[in-house]
C-alpha cells in the first residue's frame, strides 16, 4: 500500500527480461518473464520451491543450463551465445537469506564495501541512520543480534545503488515493531529507485506493503505472475492459493452446468466454470453464515477466535473438511457447536487449476506485467 502508489510510468520497455532454465540434482527450475524498470516483485512460494535459486541466477551466482537474461538492454546471460556476465559485473544488490556478512569487518566497513571510496563515508553514515544501526558502526557482525545482522546486510546491499535489487527475505528476522518501521523505510527507498526489485518473502503483510507484483514459485516453476491485487484476488492455481494462505479450498468433484459439488456438498456458481477447474476457493471474509437451513452447505461451528476487529470462525463441513470464516467482531456469531449453513456470493468464488497435474498448467501461467503501474 505504501509503496508504488504515486509512481508514474517511466518507461514502456522492460528493464529486465529473463527466460532461464536450471538443473541441479533432483531439482529443476524454469522461469520466464519481463519486468519493468520500476516496481517491487515479490517472489513467494513454498519452502524449497526455488525462490533463492532464481535470485542467484539473476545475481550471476548460479550458471543456468539454458536461456537468456537481459537487463536494461544489456545481455547478462545468453547460454546459446556463450554469454555469462560474472556476478561482480552485474550491478545487483543482494541481501542473502543467511546474511553472508563479512565477519572480520565492522558494520560500517560492511556497509561501505561496495561503495566507491569518495562517497563511502557519506553513504555509510546515511545507511547507518536509515537502518537504525548508528551505535553499532564499530561492531563486528559476530557481536550483533540476529536482527542487527540482517539490517547490516540490507544496508550493505542498498548502499551500492544497484541496477537490480534482490532481497531474500529481508525482513524475516526483524521483530514486529522494527519491521513496521523498516518496511516503511524500505518502501520509501524502493520508491526512489528506478530499478526492478525482487523480494523473496514469507510474510503476506510484507508483500502487501511492499510489492507491486507477485510471482509464485512452486517446485521450480513460476506458476503465476501478475499484479499483486490480481494475484491476491484470483490465485488461478490451487498451489498459489495455498501459498497465499487461503484456508478455504475445495476439490471439485461433480461439474454440471452452473452447479459444482464435492464431498462437502454443492454450490451454485455464476455461469459455467472453466473446464480445467479442479478446485474452488474463496476468502474467509466472503464466507457467509446462516442460521437457517436450505442456504448452501451444512456445517458445525468448531471454534471461534478473536483477532482484534475480526472473529475467526472455524467450521466443520461434510467429508471431514474445515472452512474458515472471518466475521466482524461486532456482529453476533453462532456459538461453538451450533449448526449453521454456509454460502458464498458467486462473484467471490474462484476457480483454480490443479497446478501441478493439469497439462494446461505445465507452462507457467505467466501473465507478465508489461507496463509500469499507474496510481
Amino acid at each position: 500500500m505504501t509503496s508504488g502508489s504515486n509512481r508514474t510510468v517511466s518507461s514502456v520497455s522492460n528493464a529486465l527480461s529473463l527466460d532461464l532454465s536450471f538443473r541441479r540434482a533432483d531439482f529443476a527450475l524454469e522461469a520466464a518473464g519481463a519486468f519493468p524498470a520500476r516496481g517491487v516483485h515479490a517472489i513467494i512460494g513454498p519452502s524449497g520451491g526455488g525462490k533463492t535459486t532464481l535470485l542467484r541466477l539473476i545475481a550471476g551466482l548460479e550458471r543456468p543450463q539454458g536461456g537468456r537474461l537481459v537487463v536494461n538492454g544489456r545481455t547478462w546471460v545468453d547460454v546459446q551465445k556463450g554469454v555469462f556476465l560474472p556476478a561482480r559485473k552485474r550491478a545487483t544488490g543482494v541481501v542473502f537469506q543467511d546474511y553472508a556478512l563479512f565477519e572480520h569487518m565492522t558494520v560500517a566497513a560492511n556497509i561501505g564495501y561496495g561503495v566507491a571510496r569518495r562517497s563511502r563515508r557519506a553513504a555509510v553514515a546515511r545507511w547507518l541512520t536509515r537502518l537504525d544501526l548508528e551505535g553499532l558502526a564499530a561492531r563486528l557482525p559476530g557481536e550483533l543480534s540476529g536482527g542487527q545482522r540482517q539490517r547490516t546486510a540490507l544496508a550493505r546491499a542498498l548502499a551500492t545503488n544497484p541496477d537490480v535489487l534482490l532481497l531474500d527475505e529481508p525482513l524475516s528476522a526483524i521483530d514486529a515493531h522494527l519491521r513496521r518501521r523498516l518496511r516503511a523505510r524500505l518502501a520509501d527507498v524502493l520508491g526512489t529507485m528506478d530499478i526492478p526489485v525482487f523480494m523473496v518473502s514469507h510474510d503476506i503483510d510484507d508483500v502487501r506493503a511492499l510489492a507491486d507484483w507477485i510471482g509464485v514459485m512452486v517446485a521450480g516453476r513460476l506458476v503465476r505472475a501478475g499484479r499483486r491485487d490480481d494475484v491476491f484476488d484470483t490465485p488461478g492455481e490451487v498451489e498459489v492459493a495455498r501459498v497465499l494462505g487461503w484456508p478455504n479450498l475445495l476439490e471439485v468433484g461433480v461439474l454440471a452446468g452452473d452447479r459444482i459439488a464435492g464431498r462437502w456438498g454443492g454450490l451454485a456458481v455464476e455461469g459455467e466454470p472453466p473446464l480445467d477447474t479442479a478446485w474452488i476457493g474463496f476468502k474467509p471474509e466472503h464466507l457467509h453464515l446462516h442460521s437457517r437451513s436450505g442456504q448452501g452447505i451444512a456445517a458445525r461451528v468448531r471454534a471461534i477466535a478473536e483477532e482484534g476487529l475480526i472473529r475467526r470462525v472455524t467450521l466443520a463441513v461434510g467429508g471431514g473438511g474445515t472452512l474458515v470464516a472471518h466475521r466482524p467482531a461486532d456482529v453476533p456469531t453462532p456459538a461453538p457447536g451450533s449448526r449453521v449453513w454456509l454460502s458464498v456470493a458467486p462473484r467471490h468464488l474462484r476457480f483454480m487449476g490443479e497446478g501441478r497435474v493439469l497439462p494446461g498448467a505445465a507452462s507457467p501461467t505467466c501473465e507478465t506485467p508489461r507496463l509500469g503501474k499507474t496510481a
Partner: protein
Amino acid sequence: MTAPPGALDLAPLWLSFRLAGVTLGVLLAIALPLAWWLAWTRWRGKVVIETLVALPMVLPPTVLGFYLLVVMGPEGALGRVWRALTGSTLTFTFAGLVIASCVYSLPFVVQPLIAAFKRLDRRSVEASCTLGAPWWRTFALIVVPGIRGGILVAAVQGFAHTLGEFGVVLMVGGNIPGATRVVSIAIFEHVETLNYEAAGGLSLVLVAISFALLMATFVIGGERARRVPA
C-alpha cells in the same frame, strides 16, 4: 672464517633470515594461487598435483639436494635455462638457494593454504562479487582475511623450516661464507668438529631470535579477527 676465535660469527645468521624471508615471499606468491586453484577446481586430475606438491617431503633433504644439484647444475635442465637467461650459474649462489628452498618448503606452505581455502566461506566471496568488487579486491579484503589462520601456519612453517633446513642448502649452496653459508650449516659444522660450545652458542642465538619472531607472529596473527574499519 673471519670471526675471531671464541666470538660467534653472526653473518650466517643474517644470511639465513634473509634466505628464509625471500623464500617465504616467493613461496607465498606461488602457493596462494596454486592452493586457491587446487582448493576450488573440479578437475579430476588435481589430486595428482596435490600429491606431487607433497612429495618433496618424503625425500631426505640431502638426497633431494643431490637431485637439485644435478638439475640446477650447468648441465642440468634448469641450470641451462638459467644460464641462458642470466649468463651466470645457479648453484652456489643465493638465487640457487632460494630456488632449492622453495622446492623443499613448498609443501609446507601449500598444504595449510589448501585446507584454509577449502574452509573459506563461499558465501562471503559471493557477497563481495555481487557488491561489484574486482577479483583482487575480493582476494585482498575477503579471501586473505578469511584464510588468515592458514596463512599464519603457512608462513610460520615456510619461514621456520627454511631457517632450519640444511641438507638441501648444503648441497646446492656449497657452504660459501657470505654467499651460501647459512646458520644451519654453521651450527652443523660446529657439531661435526666437536666444537659443541660454539654450536650451542649459535643455536641459542638462532633459537632466541626465532622465538621472538615466532612469538610476535603468533601474537599478531592469533588476535581475534581484526576490525577493518570503514
